Protein backbone atom coordinates (compact mmCIF):
# COMPACT_ATOMS: atom_id res chain seq x y z
CA UNK A 1 0.00 0.00 0.00
CA UNK A 2 1.17 3.52 -0.79
CA UNK A 3 -0.11 6.41 1.29
CA UNK A 4 0.28 9.97 0.05
CA UNK A 5 -0.31 12.83 2.48
CA UNK A 6 -0.64 16.51 1.57
CA UNK A 7 1.84 16.40 -1.33
CA UNK A 8 3.03 19.77 -2.65
CA UNK A 9 5.35 20.20 -5.61
CA UNK A 10 6.35 23.42 -7.40
CA UNK A 11 8.55 24.33 -10.34
CA UNK A 12 9.75 27.85 -9.62
CA UNK A 13 6.67 29.93 -8.88
CA UNK A 14 4.29 27.43 -10.44
CA UNK A 15 2.68 25.07 -7.93
CA UNK A 16 1.89 21.88 -9.82
CA UNK A 17 0.68 19.68 -6.95
CA UNK A 18 -1.32 21.56 -4.34
CA UNK A 19 -1.71 19.16 -1.45
CA UNK A 20 -2.74 15.72 -2.70
CA UNK A 21 -3.68 13.02 -0.22
CA UNK A 22 -4.73 9.53 -1.25
CA UNK A 23 -4.06 5.84 -0.75
CA UNK A 24 -3.12 3.27 -3.40
CA UNK A 25 -4.18 -0.15 -2.24
CA UNK A 26 -2.35 -3.47 -2.48
CA UNK A 27 -3.64 -6.00 -5.02
CA UNK A 28 -5.63 -3.33 -6.87
CA UNK A 29 -5.13 -1.43 -10.09
CA UNK A 30 -5.12 2.21 -9.02
CA UNK A 31 -5.57 4.75 -11.81
CA UNK A 32 -4.56 8.40 -11.82
CA UNK A 33 -6.57 10.27 -14.44
CA UNK A 34 -6.93 13.89 -15.45
CA UNK A 35 -6.49 16.33 -18.30
CA UNK A 36 -3.11 17.16 -19.77
CA UNK A 37 -1.34 19.56 -17.42
CA UNK A 38 -3.31 18.42 -14.38
CA UNK A 39 -0.15 17.16 -12.65
CA UNK A 40 -0.47 13.39 -13.27
CA UNK A 41 3.07 12.82 -14.55
CA UNK A 42 4.59 15.04 -11.86
CA UNK A 43 2.59 13.12 -9.25
CA UNK A 44 3.80 9.79 -10.63
CA UNK A 45 7.42 11.01 -10.74
CA UNK A 46 7.12 12.15 -7.10
CA UNK A 47 5.82 8.68 -6.20
CA UNK A 48 8.79 7.13 -7.99
CA UNK A 49 11.28 9.40 -6.23
CA UNK A 50 12.37 11.03 -9.51
CA UNK A 51 11.18 14.44 -8.26
CA UNK A 52 11.72 15.92 -4.81
CA UNK A 53 8.72 17.64 -3.28
CA UNK A 54 8.48 20.60 -0.91
CA UNK A 55 5.84 19.36 1.49
CA UNK A 56 3.94 16.20 2.36
CA UNK A 57 4.84 12.54 2.69
CA UNK A 58 4.80 9.34 0.65
CA UNK A 59 4.80 6.09 2.62
CA UNK A 60 5.46 2.66 1.10
CA UNK A 61 3.83 0.09 3.41
CA UNK A 62 4.19 2.49 6.33
CA UNK A 63 7.78 3.54 5.56
CA UNK A 64 7.94 7.29 4.87
CA UNK A 65 10.30 7.53 1.86
CA UNK A 66 11.82 10.92 2.70
CA UNK A 67 12.88 9.72 6.17
CA UNK A 68 14.69 6.61 4.95
CA UNK A 69 18.46 6.25 4.66
CA UNK A 70 20.01 5.95 1.19
CA UNK A 71 20.32 2.16 1.58
CA UNK A 72 16.69 1.85 2.67
CA UNK A 73 15.60 4.00 -0.28
CA UNK A 74 17.59 1.77 -2.61
CA UNK A 75 15.87 -1.29 -1.13
CA UNK A 76 12.45 0.27 -1.76
CA UNK A 77 13.45 1.18 -5.33
CA UNK A 78 14.54 -2.40 -5.94
CA UNK A 79 10.93 -3.39 -5.10
CA UNK A 80 9.49 -1.00 -7.71
CA UNK A 81 8.69 -2.00 -11.29
CA UNK A 82 8.02 0.73 -13.81
CA UNK A 83 6.48 0.66 -17.27
CA UNK A 84 7.33 3.91 -19.05
CA UNK A 85 5.15 5.58 -21.66
CA UNK A 86 7.73 4.89 -24.38
CA UNK A 87 8.69 1.53 -22.81
CA UNK A 88 12.26 2.80 -22.14
CA UNK A 89 13.87 -0.47 -23.16
CA UNK A 90 17.66 -0.42 -23.38
CA UNK A 91 18.45 -0.17 -27.11
CA UNK A 92 21.78 -1.96 -26.86
CA UNK A 93 20.29 -5.10 -25.29
CA UNK A 94 18.11 -7.87 -26.68
CA UNK A 95 14.62 -8.40 -25.28
CA UNK A 96 15.85 -11.22 -23.02
CA UNK A 97 18.78 -9.09 -21.79
CA UNK A 98 16.40 -6.21 -21.04
CA UNK A 99 14.22 -8.48 -18.92
CA UNK A 100 17.25 -10.03 -17.21
CA UNK A 101 18.73 -6.62 -16.35
CA UNK A 102 17.06 -6.13 -12.90
CA UNK A 103 18.03 -9.69 -11.93
CA UNK A 104 21.66 -9.03 -12.87
CA UNK A 105 21.69 -5.80 -10.91
CA UNK A 106 19.87 -6.83 -7.74
CA UNK A 107 20.19 -10.57 -7.27
CA UNK A 108 22.97 -13.09 -6.97
CA UNK A 109 21.20 -15.72 -9.05
CA UNK A 110 23.19 -18.02 -11.32
CA UNK A 111 22.91 -17.56 -15.08
CA UNK A 112 20.62 -20.58 -15.47
CA UNK A 113 18.34 -19.35 -12.66
CA UNK A 114 18.09 -15.95 -14.32
CA UNK A 115 17.39 -17.53 -17.72
CA UNK A 116 14.64 -19.69 -16.20
CA UNK A 117 13.04 -16.64 -14.61
CA UNK A 118 13.29 -14.63 -17.86
CA UNK A 119 11.73 -17.50 -19.82
CA UNK A 120 8.91 -17.73 -17.29
CA UNK A 121 8.17 -14.00 -17.32
CA UNK A 122 8.36 -13.67 -21.10
CA UNK A 123 5.97 -16.60 -21.40
CA UNK A 124 3.69 -14.88 -18.90
CA UNK A 125 3.43 -11.85 -21.20
CA UNK A 126 3.05 -14.09 -24.27
CA UNK A 127 6.46 -13.31 -25.73
CA UNK A 128 8.19 -16.64 -25.48
CA UNK A 129 9.66 -16.52 -29.00
CA UNK A 130 11.14 -13.03 -28.98
CA UNK A 131 14.18 -13.51 -26.72
CA UNK A 132 16.85 -12.56 -29.21
CA UNK A 133 15.10 -9.69 -30.93
CA UNK A 134 16.35 -6.15 -30.40
CA UNK A 135 13.79 -3.62 -29.07
CA UNK A 136 13.86 -1.80 -32.42
CA UNK A 137 12.65 -4.99 -34.12
CA UNK A 138 9.60 -5.29 -31.84
CA UNK A 139 6.19 -3.66 -32.37
CA UNK A 140 4.78 -1.09 -29.93
CA UNK A 141 2.61 -3.71 -28.23
CA UNK A 142 5.52 -6.12 -27.93
CA UNK A 143 7.73 -3.38 -26.47
CA UNK A 144 5.06 -2.64 -23.85
CA UNK A 145 4.87 -6.31 -22.94
CA UNK A 146 8.67 -6.50 -22.65
CA UNK A 147 8.53 -3.42 -20.40
CA UNK A 148 5.93 -5.15 -18.23
CA UNK A 149 8.05 -8.32 -18.15
CA UNK A 150 11.10 -6.28 -17.09
CA UNK A 151 9.03 -4.51 -14.44
CA UNK A 152 7.75 -7.73 -12.84
CA UNK A 153 10.78 -10.00 -13.28
CA UNK A 154 12.17 -9.20 -9.83
CA UNK A 155 8.81 -9.74 -8.07
CA UNK A 156 8.11 -6.08 -7.31
CA UNK A 157 5.77 -5.00 -4.55
CA UNK A 158 4.84 -1.84 -6.44
CA UNK A 159 4.17 -1.50 -10.17
CA UNK A 160 3.91 1.93 -11.82
CA UNK A 161 2.73 2.40 -15.40
CA UNK A 162 2.82 5.71 -17.25
CA UNK A 163 0.23 5.70 -20.04
CA UNK A 164 0.70 2.00 -20.82
CA UNK A 165 -1.79 2.15 -23.71
CA UNK A 166 -0.54 5.22 -25.51
CA UNK A 167 0.16 4.59 -29.18
CA UNK A 168 -1.47 1.16 -29.17
CA UNK A 169 -4.45 -0.05 -31.17
CA UNK A 170 -7.63 -0.72 -29.12
CA UNK A 171 -7.24 -4.51 -29.21
CA UNK A 172 -3.61 -4.46 -28.05
CA UNK A 173 -4.53 -1.84 -25.43
CA UNK A 174 -7.09 -4.23 -23.95
CA UNK A 175 -4.52 -7.05 -23.93
CA UNK A 176 -2.08 -4.80 -22.01
CA UNK A 177 -4.82 -3.68 -19.57
CA UNK A 178 -5.87 -7.25 -18.86
CA UNK A 179 -2.26 -8.33 -18.45
CA UNK A 180 -1.59 -5.60 -15.89
CA UNK A 181 -4.75 -6.45 -13.96
CA UNK A 182 -4.02 -10.20 -13.98
CA UNK A 183 -0.46 -9.63 -12.76
CA UNK A 184 -1.64 -7.23 -10.07
CA UNK A 185 -4.16 -9.76 -8.80
CA UNK A 186 -1.87 -12.78 -9.18
CA UNK A 187 1.13 -11.29 -7.34
CA UNK A 188 -0.83 -8.92 -5.05
CA UNK A 189 1.13 -5.90 -6.29
CA UNK A 190 0.23 -2.28 -5.55
CA UNK A 191 -0.26 -1.04 -9.11
CA UNK A 192 -0.51 2.66 -9.98
CA UNK A 193 -1.38 3.58 -13.57
CA UNK A 194 -1.27 7.04 -15.07
CA UNK A 195 -3.81 7.00 -17.88
CA UNK A 196 -5.80 9.03 -20.37
CA UNK A 197 -7.53 5.99 -21.76
CA UNK A 198 -11.21 5.84 -20.83
CA UNK A 199 -11.43 2.16 -21.74
CA UNK A 200 -8.80 1.46 -19.08
CA UNK A 201 -10.74 3.58 -16.60
CA UNK A 202 -13.90 1.54 -17.21
CA UNK A 203 -12.19 -1.86 -17.44
CA UNK A 204 -9.51 -1.96 -14.76
CA UNK A 205 -10.00 1.12 -12.58
CA UNK A 206 -10.49 -0.59 -9.24
CA UNK A 207 -9.50 2.70 -7.66
CA UNK A 208 -9.50 5.99 -9.56
CA UNK A 209 -7.97 9.29 -8.49
CA UNK A 210 -8.99 12.24 -10.66
CA UNK A 211 -6.61 15.21 -10.65
CA UNK A 212 -7.49 18.72 -11.75
CA UNK A 213 -5.22 21.75 -11.55
CA UNK A 214 -2.91 19.95 -9.13
CA UNK A 215 -5.67 18.96 -6.74
CA UNK A 216 -7.51 15.71 -6.16
CA UNK A 217 -10.94 16.54 -7.58
CA UNK A 218 -12.52 13.13 -7.14
CA UNK A 219 -11.78 9.62 -5.90
CA UNK A 220 -13.72 6.43 -6.57
CA UNK A 221 -13.77 3.29 -8.71
CA UNK A 222 -14.98 2.13 -12.13
CA UNK A 223 -18.26 1.20 -10.41
CA UNK A 224 -18.89 4.57 -8.81
CA UNK A 225 -17.67 6.70 -11.71
CA UNK A 226 -20.91 5.94 -13.59
CA UNK A 227 -23.01 7.31 -10.78
CA UNK A 228 -21.01 10.34 -9.75
CA UNK A 229 -22.65 13.76 -9.92
CA UNK A 230 -19.30 15.52 -9.89
CA UNK A 231 -19.51 17.65 -13.04
CA UNK A 232 -15.78 18.03 -13.40
CA UNK A 233 -15.37 14.25 -13.56
CA UNK A 234 -18.33 13.64 -15.85
CA UNK A 235 -17.18 16.43 -18.22
CA UNK A 236 -13.78 14.74 -18.51
CA UNK A 237 -14.70 11.05 -18.50
CA UNK A 238 -17.85 11.35 -20.59
CA UNK A 239 -16.58 13.96 -23.01
CA UNK A 240 -17.21 11.70 -26.03
CA UNK A 241 -20.74 10.93 -27.24
CA UNK A 242 -20.02 7.22 -27.07
CA UNK A 243 -19.21 7.34 -23.37
CA UNK A 244 -22.22 9.59 -22.72
CA UNK A 245 -24.43 6.89 -24.25
CA UNK A 246 -22.66 4.14 -22.29
CA UNK A 247 -23.22 6.02 -19.07
CA UNK A 248 -26.88 6.64 -19.88
CA UNK A 249 -27.40 2.96 -20.64
CA UNK A 250 -25.60 1.93 -17.46
CA UNK A 251 -27.75 4.21 -15.31
CA UNK A 252 -30.95 3.07 -17.03
CA UNK A 253 -30.02 -0.61 -16.56
CA UNK A 254 -29.28 -0.11 -12.88
CA UNK A 255 -32.37 1.91 -12.06
Amino acid at each position, binding site marked *: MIEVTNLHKSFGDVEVLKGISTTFEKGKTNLIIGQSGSGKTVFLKCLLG*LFDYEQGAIAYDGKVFAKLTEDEKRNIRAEIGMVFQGSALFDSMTIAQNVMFPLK*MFTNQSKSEMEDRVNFVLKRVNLDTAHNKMPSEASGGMQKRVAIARAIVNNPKYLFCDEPNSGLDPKTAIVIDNLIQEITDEYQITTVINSHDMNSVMEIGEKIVFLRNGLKAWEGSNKTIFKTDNEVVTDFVYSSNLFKKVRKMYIEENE
Partner: protein
Amino acid sequence: MTYLHNIGAYFLMIVEMFRKPTKWTVMKQLILKDIDDLIIGSLGIVAFISFFVGGVVTIQTALNIDSPLIPKYLVGFATRQSIILEFAPTFMSIIMAGKVGSFITSSIGTMRVTEQIDALEVMGINSLNYLVFPKFIALLLYPFIISIAMFLGILGGMAACVYGGFSSLEDYNVGIQTDFETFHVIYAFIKTIVFAFILATIPSFHGYYMKGGALEVGKASTTSFVWTSVVIIILNYFLTQMLLSS
Protein backbone atom coordinates in the same frame (compact mmCIF):
# COMPACT_ATOMS: atom_id res chain seq x y z
CA MET B 1 25.20 32.81 -14.42
CA THR B 2 24.29 29.81 -16.61
CA TYR B 3 28.00 29.11 -17.17
CA LEU B 4 28.67 29.11 -13.42
CA HIS B 5 25.70 26.85 -12.84
CA ASN B 6 26.90 24.44 -15.52
CA ILE B 7 30.46 24.40 -14.17
CA GLY B 8 29.09 23.61 -10.69
CA ALA B 9 26.79 20.91 -12.11
CA TYR B 10 29.73 19.41 -14.03
CA PHE B 11 31.84 19.01 -10.88
CA LEU B 12 28.87 17.61 -8.94
CA MET B 13 28.40 15.11 -11.78
CA ILE B 14 32.02 14.00 -11.41
CA VAL B 15 31.58 13.47 -7.66
CA GLU B 16 28.33 11.56 -8.24
CA MET B 17 30.02 9.42 -10.90
CA PHE B 18 32.21 7.80 -8.23
CA ARG B 19 29.39 7.20 -5.72
CA LYS B 20 27.15 4.13 -5.36
CA PRO B 21 29.19 1.87 -7.65
CA THR B 22 27.43 -0.52 -10.01
CA LYS B 23 27.82 -4.26 -9.38
CA TRP B 24 31.27 -5.31 -10.64
CA THR B 25 30.02 -8.16 -12.85
CA VAL B 26 27.84 -5.66 -14.75
CA MET B 27 30.45 -2.88 -14.70
CA LYS B 28 33.09 -5.19 -16.17
CA GLN B 29 30.91 -5.79 -19.24
CA LEU B 30 30.16 -2.08 -19.60
CA ILE B 31 33.87 -1.22 -19.49
CA LEU B 32 34.70 -3.85 -22.13
CA LYS B 33 31.90 -2.57 -24.35
CA ASP B 34 33.11 1.01 -24.00
CA ILE B 35 36.71 -0.03 -24.74
CA ASP B 36 35.40 -1.58 -27.93
CA ASP B 37 33.26 1.45 -28.85
CA LEU B 38 35.63 4.24 -27.84
CA ILE B 39 39.14 2.82 -28.19
CA ILE B 40 39.11 -0.06 -30.67
CA GLY B 41 36.46 1.69 -32.77
CA SER B 42 38.69 4.76 -33.11
CA LEU B 43 41.86 2.99 -34.23
CA GLY B 44 41.04 3.10 -37.95
CA ILE B 45 40.42 6.83 -38.18
CA VAL B 46 43.37 7.60 -35.88
CA ALA B 47 45.71 5.49 -38.01
CA PHE B 48 44.49 7.05 -41.24
CA ILE B 49 44.71 10.66 -40.06
CA SER B 50 48.04 10.23 -38.27
CA PHE B 51 49.78 8.63 -41.22
CA PHE B 52 48.74 11.29 -43.72
CA VAL B 53 49.14 14.29 -41.41
CA GLY B 54 52.63 13.00 -40.54
CA GLY B 55 53.34 12.96 -44.27
CA VAL B 56 52.01 16.49 -44.77
CA VAL B 57 54.03 17.87 -41.83
CA THR B 58 57.15 16.37 -43.37
CA ILE B 59 56.44 17.77 -46.86
CA GLN B 60 55.66 21.26 -45.45
CA THR B 61 58.85 21.25 -43.40
CA ALA B 62 60.99 20.04 -46.28
CA LEU B 63 59.54 22.59 -48.71
CA ASN B 64 60.17 25.45 -46.28
CA ILE B 65 63.83 24.65 -45.81
CA ASP B 66 65.61 26.64 -48.48
CA SER B 67 69.02 27.23 -46.99
CA PRO B 68 71.72 24.65 -47.83
CA LEU B 69 73.20 25.40 -44.38
CA ILE B 70 70.30 23.67 -42.67
CA PRO B 71 71.02 19.96 -42.32
CA LYS B 72 68.72 17.50 -44.15
CA TYR B 73 67.98 15.57 -40.94
CA LEU B 74 66.03 18.60 -39.66
CA VAL B 75 62.99 17.33 -41.58
CA GLY B 76 62.84 14.18 -39.40
CA PHE B 77 63.59 16.17 -36.26
CA ALA B 78 60.81 18.73 -36.92
CA THR B 79 58.33 16.00 -37.82
CA ARG B 80 59.06 14.07 -34.62
CA GLN B 81 58.75 17.15 -32.42
CA SER B 82 55.51 18.31 -34.07
CA ILE B 83 53.93 14.87 -33.88
CA ILE B 84 54.96 14.01 -30.30
CA LEU B 85 54.48 17.41 -28.71
CA GLU B 86 51.31 18.67 -30.37
CA PHE B 87 49.74 16.71 -33.18
CA ALA B 88 49.26 13.34 -31.46
CA PRO B 89 48.17 14.45 -27.98
CA THR B 90 46.33 17.70 -28.72
CA PHE B 91 45.01 17.74 -32.24
CA MET B 92 44.15 14.05 -32.19
CA SER B 93 42.16 14.79 -29.00
CA ILE B 94 40.20 17.48 -30.83
CA ILE B 95 39.48 15.01 -33.62
CA MET B 96 38.42 12.50 -30.95
CA ALA B 97 36.15 15.16 -29.39
CA GLY B 98 34.29 15.03 -32.69
CA LYS B 99 34.28 11.26 -33.04
CA VAL B 100 34.12 9.87 -29.50
CA GLY B 101 32.61 12.97 -27.86
CA SER B 102 29.67 13.16 -30.26
CA PHE B 103 29.07 9.43 -29.85
CA ILE B 104 29.01 9.75 -26.05
CA THR B 105 26.71 12.80 -26.05
CA SER B 106 24.28 11.38 -28.57
CA SER B 107 24.10 7.92 -26.98
CA ILE B 108 23.54 9.29 -23.46
CA GLY B 109 21.25 12.05 -24.79
CA THR B 110 19.11 9.49 -26.62
CA MET B 111 18.87 7.49 -23.41
CA ARG B 112 17.66 10.66 -21.65
CA VAL B 113 15.05 11.40 -24.34
CA THR B 114 13.72 7.85 -24.38
CA GLU B 115 13.49 7.71 -20.55
CA GLN B 116 16.13 4.96 -20.31
CA ILE B 117 18.02 7.04 -17.72
CA ASP B 118 14.79 7.46 -15.72
CA ALA B 119 14.35 3.68 -15.91
CA LEU B 120 17.81 3.22 -14.35
CA GLU B 121 17.08 5.78 -11.62
CA VAL B 122 13.72 4.19 -10.77
CA MET B 123 15.50 0.86 -10.31
CA GLY B 124 17.76 2.54 -7.75
CA ILE B 125 20.83 2.47 -10.00
CA ASN B 126 23.25 5.41 -9.93
CA SER B 127 22.87 6.24 -13.61
CA LEU B 128 25.96 8.48 -13.66
CA ASN B 129 28.12 5.68 -12.33
CA TYR B 130 26.49 3.22 -14.71
CA LEU B 131 26.87 5.42 -17.81
CA VAL B 132 29.88 7.70 -17.31
CA PHE B 133 32.29 5.74 -15.09
CA PRO B 134 32.90 2.92 -17.64
CA LYS B 135 33.64 5.52 -20.32
CA PHE B 136 36.17 7.18 -18.02
CA ILE B 137 37.86 3.83 -17.32
CA ALA B 138 37.81 2.87 -21.02
CA LEU B 139 39.44 6.18 -21.95
CA LEU B 140 42.31 5.48 -19.55
CA LEU B 141 43.52 3.43 -22.52
CA TYR B 142 43.56 6.60 -24.60
CA PRO B 143 47.40 6.92 -24.34
CA PHE B 144 47.50 3.63 -26.29
CA ILE B 145 45.73 5.36 -29.20
CA ILE B 146 48.04 8.34 -28.96
CA SER B 147 51.10 6.07 -29.01
CA ILE B 148 49.82 4.60 -32.25
CA ALA B 149 49.18 8.11 -33.59
CA MET B 150 52.77 9.09 -32.74
CA PHE B 151 54.24 6.01 -34.38
CA LEU B 152 52.12 6.25 -37.52
CA GLY B 153 52.63 10.01 -37.80
CA ILE B 154 56.39 9.58 -37.81
CA LEU B 155 56.08 6.59 -40.17
CA GLY B 156 53.87 8.62 -42.54
CA GLY B 157 56.46 11.38 -42.43
CA MET B 158 59.18 8.91 -43.31
CA ALA B 159 57.20 7.54 -46.26
CA ALA B 160 56.49 11.05 -47.58
CA CYS B 161 60.08 12.13 -47.07
CA VAL B 162 61.72 9.15 -48.73
CA TYR B 163 59.23 8.51 -51.53
CA GLY B 164 58.77 12.25 -52.16
CA GLY B 165 62.50 12.61 -52.59
CA PHE B 166 62.91 15.30 -49.88
CA SER B 167 65.73 13.51 -48.05
CA SER B 168 67.17 10.06 -47.59
CA LEU B 169 65.96 7.42 -45.15
CA GLU B 170 69.26 7.73 -43.27
CA ASP B 171 68.84 11.51 -42.84
CA TYR B 172 65.27 11.07 -41.65
CA ASN B 173 66.32 8.39 -39.16
CA VAL B 174 69.10 10.61 -37.82
CA GLY B 175 66.59 13.45 -37.51
CA ILE B 176 64.04 11.52 -35.49
CA GLN B 177 66.77 10.44 -33.05
CA THR B 178 68.49 13.82 -32.71
CA ASP B 179 68.23 15.53 -29.29
CA PHE B 180 65.51 13.12 -28.19
CA GLU B 181 64.15 13.94 -24.73
CA THR B 182 62.17 11.30 -22.91
CA PHE B 183 60.36 13.98 -20.96
CA HIS B 184 58.67 15.17 -24.15
CA VAL B 185 56.94 11.81 -24.42
CA ILE B 186 56.03 11.92 -20.71
CA TYR B 187 54.65 15.44 -21.23
CA ALA B 188 52.57 14.17 -24.16
CA PHE B 189 51.16 11.31 -22.09
CA ILE B 190 50.36 13.58 -19.13
CA LYS B 191 48.36 15.76 -21.52
CA THR B 192 46.75 12.68 -23.01
CA ILE B 193 45.50 11.43 -19.64
CA VAL B 194 44.04 14.86 -18.80
CA PHE B 195 42.37 15.07 -22.22
CA ALA B 196 41.01 11.53 -21.81
CA PHE B 197 39.23 12.66 -18.64
CA ILE B 198 37.83 15.67 -20.50
CA LEU B 199 36.76 13.48 -23.43
CA ALA B 200 34.86 11.15 -21.10
CA THR B 201 33.18 13.72 -18.88
CA ILE B 202 32.25 16.85 -20.88
CA PRO B 203 30.34 14.97 -23.62
CA SER B 204 28.68 12.84 -20.92
CA PHE B 205 27.63 16.02 -19.09
CA HIS B 206 26.04 17.46 -22.24
CA GLY B 207 24.21 14.21 -22.98
CA TYR B 208 23.10 13.50 -19.42
CA TYR B 209 21.67 16.94 -18.66
CA MET B 210 20.11 17.64 -22.06
CA LYS B 211 16.42 18.47 -22.26
CA GLY B 212 14.07 18.07 -25.21
CA GLY B 213 13.83 15.65 -28.12
CA ALA B 214 15.80 14.33 -31.08
CA LEU B 215 16.68 17.80 -32.38
CA GLU B 216 18.18 18.73 -29.02
CA VAL B 217 20.31 15.56 -29.06
CA GLY B 218 21.96 16.89 -32.25
CA LYS B 219 22.39 20.35 -30.72
CA ALA B 220 23.86 18.83 -27.53
CA SER B 221 26.40 16.88 -29.63
CA THR B 222 27.51 20.08 -31.36
CA THR B 223 27.73 22.03 -28.08
CA SER B 224 29.62 19.18 -26.49
CA PHE B 225 32.19 19.15 -29.34
CA VAL B 226 32.69 22.92 -29.07
CA TRP B 227 33.16 22.88 -25.28
CA THR B 228 35.36 19.79 -25.26
CA SER B 229 37.62 21.41 -27.88
CA VAL B 230 37.73 24.73 -26.00
CA VAL B 231 38.64 23.05 -22.71
CA ILE B 232 41.30 20.90 -24.41
CA ILE B 233 42.91 23.96 -26.04
CA ILE B 234 42.88 25.96 -22.79
CA LEU B 235 44.25 23.07 -20.72
CA ASN B 236 46.87 22.43 -23.40
CA TYR B 237 48.14 25.97 -22.95
CA PHE B 238 48.36 25.73 -19.15
CA LEU B 239 49.86 22.23 -19.13
CA THR B 240 52.50 23.28 -21.66
CA GLN B 241 53.30 26.37 -19.59
CA MET B 242 53.59 24.28 -16.41
CA LEU B 243 55.45 21.28 -17.77
CA LEU B 244 57.77 22.68 -20.42
CA SER B 245 58.61 26.21 -19.41
CA SER B 246 60.29 25.34 -16.10
